[in-house]
C-alpha cells in the first residue's frame, strides 16, 4: 500500500526502558509529523520535519523524547527511561510540502508502560 506505515502497532514495556517507534511516510512527502494521543484526548503535537529545514521540536514534552529523520524517508521517535505517563497512541503523519495540504496518518503505535 501507499499509506503511512508505523511500527510496531503495539508496544508493551516496563517503566524505565527505552522505546523506539518507527514511521515510514508516503513516498514524496517532504513533511512528517509526530503526535501523541492519550486515552480520551485529542492529538498533541510533538515534532515535525520539513525537507532539509531544522525540525520544530517545540512539542516534545521532555528531554527524554527525541526524533530523527533521514532525508525525506523514515523517522524514528525515541523515548528514553519511559514512565507510565508516556502510555498513549503515537501517531505519525506525512504531507506534501505546502502547509495547506492534508496530513495522511498512519494507524499509530499503542504504547503501554507497565
Amino acid at each position, binding site marked *: 500500500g501507499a499509506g503511512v506505515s508505523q511500527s510496531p502497532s503495539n508496544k508493551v514495556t516496563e517503566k524505565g526502558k527505552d522505546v523506539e517507534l518507527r514511521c515510514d511516510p508516503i513516498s514524496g512527502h517532504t513533511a512528517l*509529523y509526530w503526535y501523541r494521543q492519550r486515552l480520551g484526548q485529542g492529538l498533541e503535537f510533538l515534532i515535525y520535519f520539513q525537507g532539509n529545514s531544522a525540525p*520544530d521540536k517545540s512539542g516534545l514534552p521532555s528531554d527524554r523524547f527525541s526524533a530523527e529523520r533521514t532525508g525525506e524517508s523514515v523517522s524514528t521517535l525515541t523515548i528514553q527511561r519511559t514512565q507510565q505517563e508516556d502510555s498513549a497512541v503515537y501517531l505519525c503523519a506525512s504531507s506534501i510540502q505546502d502547509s*495547506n495540504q492534508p496530513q495522511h496518518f498512519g494507524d499509530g503505535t499503542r504504547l503501554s508502560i507497565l
Partner: protein
Amino acid sequence: AQSVSQHNHHVILSEAASLELGCNYSYGGTVNLFWYVQYPGQHLQLLLKYFSGDPLVKGIKGFEAEFIKSKFSFNLRKPSVQWSDTAEYFCAVNASGGFKTIFGAGTRLFVKA
C-alpha cells in the same frame, strides 16, 4: 500560542438529524483550517479544509464547514446525518506557511439508527 477549542465532546443524534460541531481557534494571523474524521477502527483522514477563497467549503460525504474570520470559528455541518457518520471528529489549525498543526480535543459523534 495557537489553540483549538471544540465545544462538544460527545454528541448523540438520531439519523436524519442535522449536525453542527463547533470549532474555535486562537491565532491572530492567516490560518489553514481542517476537519479530520476517525471512523471506528480506521485511521484519521481529511474531511475538508479551508485555506483561502470561499469561506464555505464542502467536503466528503455531504459535510461542509464555514470559516467566519471575525469569530475565529470553523464549524462543521451536515444537514442530515447517517448511522455511518458515527466517528470522532477533530478540528485542526496551522499558520499559513507554517507546519505546526494544533488539534482540538475531538468530538465523538454517535448516530442512532
